[in-house]
């Protein structure tokens, strides 16, 4: 399966961490969101991963959209990624 | 370890010793054993004096407890309430200067049934506590939480505020008490304390039946969140204490909330939407129940002071698990707030005292009214004044509107729906649902009349509504709550019917 993830930038306390948009390919068994987050944490975040993940979920205040729908509607961490899924992370942090 | 003689009487005289940081700041003579606030190091005996004085000063300053009054001490077994019990004992002691003059009794609510204790563990805890209670010589009540299932609905009935007013009457009551006790002494009658010793222990603990425990556990399992469970437990506990106080004629209830606990409670209650009753929930005295007043004499002590006092002076406490004992930090709002404040306190040492001072500046909108005024609507559960008659521009109304707007447009507020311009001026062509006014989706207008949690809503304050929202079925609630709810609803319905009848008479003249 192929999954596309949008670029995300996460800030806090004057520093930030980001992950560029990427695509990943995986055979069976497919991943759930929990595994995806863990993978992003290990492989993509350059510094201060706690600005993105806390525990095994995203930091409070970060919105997750799967195919442009709120992940809270999709089972959040348990959601099984499907082929052609598009995952976007949006930080709700202040912008002025 | 500090080996200072407790009876050291010279401790206040010598002031020549320069204040080394390891010396007590008060007597400047003995080695300090703890630092209370930033820089204030106290030795063992000065600390004791300070601690004991603070308790009497708190009661003396507030003048709420009358001499000869029956007072119920709520003891959970924890450090703060055990310390409170020790302070009352100390204050009632024969040679205590400024002796306390009220008549105490103890109440312990055994919550083991919902906090994961098995019957053996519960009996063991109770046995430990009874040993402590017996040593005090005070009468005690040990009540299991399961007894909520035999509470009468009268617990929830509003009671007009007591006729007693603090202040002016206090002096008179003190004088009267002194005269009476002088008389008694002349006649050689037993003093209050001795009379107490002869009192039987009023409520010997009888373990709850397994059926009751199961019913209780079922009630708590129908609550979807730990936040709601903790809130309901608090409410039920309060009802049991109130009922016991009323049936045995205790007009005051003492709670052992420390300064740290109250700071946590204040922030928790703000987060739970309990702002309206914040002053009653965290202040020195809470008169929402009318005839029984709750007081919090431990509110000036930090948990550090209490822990030290108990350790240094051998105050026993008993560990009892609570609902969130093993829960992670973010399991409930109460738990989250507690860990937040404790962590913040570690970084900013004035956090607790600052929050605590905020509570002193608040006051309840629903302060006890004169008996002439009609009692205002009270929340069925927490018995505080209802805070849901909010004006149009309020968070409460905004939430209600969001609820209406989210279940179908047919139910949207008629005052604001404008059929001519209902389409969003959006550029998004995807949505077609908004074009149809009466979108035929079911569920939006059909609410059946079977008792559902929503039916209780109108009788509850903002925050208790949130708790009941997390309850799957009201049927699990103890009978005294549902029957009082029905009673109130009938009364409200009757009022409405009379109103309708009068209106009908006006409209169609038949």
């Amino acid at each position, binding site marked *: 399966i192929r999954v596309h993830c949008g670029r995300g930038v996460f800030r806090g306390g004057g520093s930030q961490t980001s992950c560029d948009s990427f695509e990943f390919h995986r055979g069976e068994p497919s991943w759930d969101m929990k595994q995806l987050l863990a993978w992003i944490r290990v492989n993509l975040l350059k510094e201060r991963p706690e600005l993105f993940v806390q525990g095994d979920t995203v930091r409070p205040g970060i919105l997750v959209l799967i195919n442009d729908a709120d992940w809270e509607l999709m089972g959040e961490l348990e959601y099984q990624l499907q082929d052609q899924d598009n995952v976007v992370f949006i930080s709700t*942090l202040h912008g002025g | 370890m500090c080996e200072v003689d407790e009876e050291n009487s010279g401790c206040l005289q010598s002031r020549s010793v320069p204040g080394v940081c390891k010396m007590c700041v008060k007597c400047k003579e003995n080695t300090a054993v703890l630092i209370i606030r930033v820089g204030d190091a106290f030795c063992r005996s000065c600390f004791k004096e300070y601690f004991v004085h603070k308790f009497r000063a708190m009661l003396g300053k507030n003048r709420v407890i009358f001499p000869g009054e029956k007072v119920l001490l709520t003891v959970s077994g924890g450090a703060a309430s055990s310390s409170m019990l020790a302070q009352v004992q100390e204050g009632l002691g024969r040679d205590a200067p400024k002796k306390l003059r009220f008549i105490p009794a103890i109440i312990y609510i055994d919550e083991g049934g919902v906090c994961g204790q098995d019957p053996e563990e519960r009996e063991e805890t109770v046995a430990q506590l009874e040993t402590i209670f017996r040593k005090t010589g005070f009468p005690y009540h040990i009540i299991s939480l399961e007894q909520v299932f035999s509470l009468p609905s009268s617990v929830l009935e509003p009671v007009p505020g007591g006729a007693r007013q603090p202040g002016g009457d206090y002096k008179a009551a003190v004088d009267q008490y002194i005269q009476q006790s002088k008389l008694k002494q002349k006649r050689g009658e037993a003093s209050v304390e001795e009379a107490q010793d002869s009192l039987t222990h009023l409520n010997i603990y009888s373990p709850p039946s397994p059926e009751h425990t199961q019913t209780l556990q079922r009630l708590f399992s129908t609550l979807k969140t730990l936040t709601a469970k903790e809130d309901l437990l608090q409410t039920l506990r309060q009802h049991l204490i109130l009922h016991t106080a009323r049936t045995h004629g205790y007009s005051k209830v003492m709670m052992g909330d420390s300064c740290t606990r109250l700071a946590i409670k204040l922030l928790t209650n703000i987060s739970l939407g309990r*702002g309206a009753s914040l002053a009653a929930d965290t202040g020195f005295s809470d008169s929402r129940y009318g005839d029984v007043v709750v007081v919090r004499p431990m509110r000036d002590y930090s948990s550090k002071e209490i822990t030290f006092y108990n350790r240094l002076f051998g105050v026993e406490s008993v560990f009892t698990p609570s609902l969130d004992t093993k829960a992670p930090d973010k399991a409930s709002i109460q738990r*989250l707030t507690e860990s937040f404040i404790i962590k913040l306190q570690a970084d900013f040492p004035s956090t607790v005292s600052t929050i605590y001072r905020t509570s002193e500046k608040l006051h309840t909108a629903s302060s006890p009214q004169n008996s002439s005024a009609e009692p205002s609507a009270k929340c069925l559960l927490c018995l505080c004044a209802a805070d849901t008659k909010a004006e149009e521009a309020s968070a409460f109304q905004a939430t209600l509107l969001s609820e209406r707007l989210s279940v*179908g447009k047919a139910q949207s507020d008629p005052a*604001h729906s404008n059929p001519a311009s209902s389409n969003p001026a959006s550029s*998004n062509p995807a949505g077609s649902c908004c074009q149809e006014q009466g979108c035929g989706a079911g569920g939006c207008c059909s609410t059946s009349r079977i008792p559902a949690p929503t039916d209780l809503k109108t009788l509850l304050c903002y925050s208790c509504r949130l708790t009941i929202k997390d309850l799957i079925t009201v049927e699990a609630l103890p009978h005294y709550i549902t029957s009082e709810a029905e009673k109130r609803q009938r009364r409200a319905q009757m009022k409405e019917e009379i109103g309708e009848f009068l209106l009908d008479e006006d409209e169609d003249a038949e």
Partner: protein
Amino acid sequence: MPVQCSSCGQNRAALKRPKTGHSLCRSCFFWAFEEEVHHTIVSGRLFSRGETVGIGASGGKDSTVLAHVLKVLNERYDYGLKLLLLSVDEGITGYRDDSLETVKRNQQQYDLPLKIVSYEELYGWTMDAIVKQVGLKNNCTFCGVFRRQALDRGAMMLNVDKICTGHNADDVAETVLMNVLRGDIARLRRCTAISTASDGEGAIPRCKPLKYAYEKEIVLYAYFKKLDYFSTECIYSPNAYRGHARTFLKDLEAVRPSAIMDVIHSGENLSVREGVKMPVQGTCSRCGYISSQALGLPKLGIGKHHRLHGKILAQQPLTQEEERKLKAVDF
């Protein structure tokens, strides 16, 4: 497993509303969001017909959504308002200069007049220059005080009747928590008010039409509507204590999503004991602007850091030059 919209029952839901737990599709969400802001405006009597309303625009998500929704509602419900965008240039290189570009694009997109007032032009100091003088501690205090005044001055230049700002429910709830943590009883009482009274001479009434709108919904509204907004944090790192309050609030929201509204409800229903001293808002003896002190120099949060006070006072030639600009009669 797609969830259906709880409002229309036809479309696939696009979000779960934190306030109520309902699931809505995009268009029902847009409709509900806009109606709710409309209700806030009507029930709070925020505006009157014919008024000129300045929208404090920073280029961020909140003010961009505010500008968009106000324009939509002004047309839909015929408020009869004259809307314009009002921006403050604090003079922060790499932050405000970029976000102002967004505001300029918004001006085109929404066809609204735009006025930018700068710290440099008003006070002779950019934030970059202030930070050079006072360092990173307390700089936010200056910036906050300066911005408040700058918005007012910009508004006066354009004869604006009311200013509205993009403060959302999260901001209001966070401020309630902040004031509890700081023990600031006066602000605790004031901070939930939806609009500031117009009694103070020289201050233009302000209001927060997004007071009951969740940050989550604002972000999703902007995202789904593909609004053009600038998303970054100020380069001068934010107040640590406020950061704690924010983190706590977000954690609360994660435990119980309605908590943000619950905190606001609490704030709206607090009452302060009689006899508790409340600071009286005064007027600066020098410029006539509202002030908590006689001489309206920004009062610093935790004392000690009076360096800028000194700097402003000590540099007499510059200050006198500034004074001309600081006087309200200039407008």
